[in-house]
């Protein structure tokens, strides 16, 4: 149990995908303009990350490793994640329109998101078992959502701030992201 908690904290805060591994930067800057959008996107990412991690864990340890073709994992994972997102989008669309309206438009964005592919690789390379994989994917997704929410809160304020003309928009967002990254270093001694 301690181990699982450590994995969760480590993925959410210490090895945060966005701020310490620099994965998934395009949704980080693209969708972080409004808090409500950021949270919807974050929830969609959590969902896809967990599903993708579980499926890729089974494929990696029960198909690729027994056949000795672990080096083909990149191709397989991309394929699996892409089709998984398609199925997920179809399911949400057909069964829950309200959920589709809030999450659906973000799902195609995640199909080729490097953060999702990244977490599957981190999980299989570290050699986590199934439970640990699920917890680590959940942690990574929660960390991603957290950073996205913090960033969108800051960017909503930045809209009102008096910023030099040449720094308006993305440049100042990068500067803020840097400071946010420095803040997250403070977590590094926790586990």
């Amino acid at each position, binding site marked *: 149990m301690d181990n699982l908690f450590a994995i969760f904290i480590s993925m959410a805060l210490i090895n945060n995908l966005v701020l310490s591994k620099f994965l998934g930067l395009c949704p980080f800057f693209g969708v972080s303009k409004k808090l409500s959008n950021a949270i919807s996107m974050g929830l969609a990412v959590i969902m896809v990350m967990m599903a993708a991690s579980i499926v890729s864990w089974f*494929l990696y340890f029960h*198909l*690729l490793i027994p*056949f*000795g*073709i672990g080096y*083909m994992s990149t*191709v*397989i994972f991309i*394929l*699996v994640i*892409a*089709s998984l997102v*398609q*199925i997920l989008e*179809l*399911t949400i*669309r*057909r*069964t829950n*329109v309200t959920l*589709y*309206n809030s999450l659906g*438009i973000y799902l195609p964005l995640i199909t080729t998101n490097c953060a999702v592919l990244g977490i599957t690789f981190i999980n299989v390379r570290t050699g986590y078992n199934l439970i640990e994989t699920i917890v680590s994917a959940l942690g990574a997704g929660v960390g991603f959502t957290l950073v996205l929410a913090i960033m969108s809160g800051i960017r909503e304020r930045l809209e009102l701030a*008096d910023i030099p003309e040449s720094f308006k928009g993305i440049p100042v967002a990068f500067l803020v992201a840097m400071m946010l990254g420095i803040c997250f270093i403070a977590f590094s001694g926790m586990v």
Partner: protein
Amino acid sequence: MDSNALIIIISLTLVGLGCGIAIFLANRFLPEEDKQLKKTEEISKYLPGANCGACGQPGCFAYAGEVAKNSDILKKSPCMQLMNDEKKLKELSEYLGLDLSGSSTKKIAVVHCSGDSEILFEYKGINSCKSASLLSAGYKKCPFGCLGFGDCAAVCPVNAISIDQKKKVAVVDPKKCIGCGLCVNECPFQLIEIIPAEMPQYLACNYLSKKNIPNRERCSIGCIHCRLCVKASEKGEVTWDEQKDLPYFDPEKCVSASAAIDKCPKKVIFPINK
């Protein structure tokens, strides 16, 4: 070509096949999607997609959803950008089987200020009309004049408003303006008004007070409330708005008042060039 390569090819093909079959099965056995959603998506194709929010909905897709539920919304709170696009409006009315021809009235925004006023004091502060207007009704001599920081230009979804930096006044380009009305609420002096696009002229002044406020006179071309324009218009093109004490052009009629434009001693009635 050893057996290892064969394994790779076969297993990759199988995984790909499995993914394809899974999507096929999901597509086949999941319940039919909501018909409303399909209609919403169809309608949203005709909408501008600028997500300006002027219709009162959070975005074009949400507006399409409301229209799919009840097509009266198109008339009650019309999408101004759609109303200006005759081709798309016609296509949408064909799709919905509605007659929208009567409601296709193009509208544009006008700024009731010529920006000719002198500067009273130098304003150094936050670059926004809202904040500048709080300091003794603006830095210009005219206490009603456009401050020219461009709060309206910032919200314009089509960049139709530009700021004349020399005169410090917002200028609307009637060719670009879609009449969405987002700028109206931004102006702290309520200088912007949405009028029908057929309107041939507008008054470029908003000097409301009948008496002059000491040291805050109107600009050199500001309306002096002489009512010559009303007298010049024989058919009643121009009437007098007693409440504002300014000439009034009836938006229902949209008639040209060229005589009044000529007669105006201050030349503050501006023709709209299209």
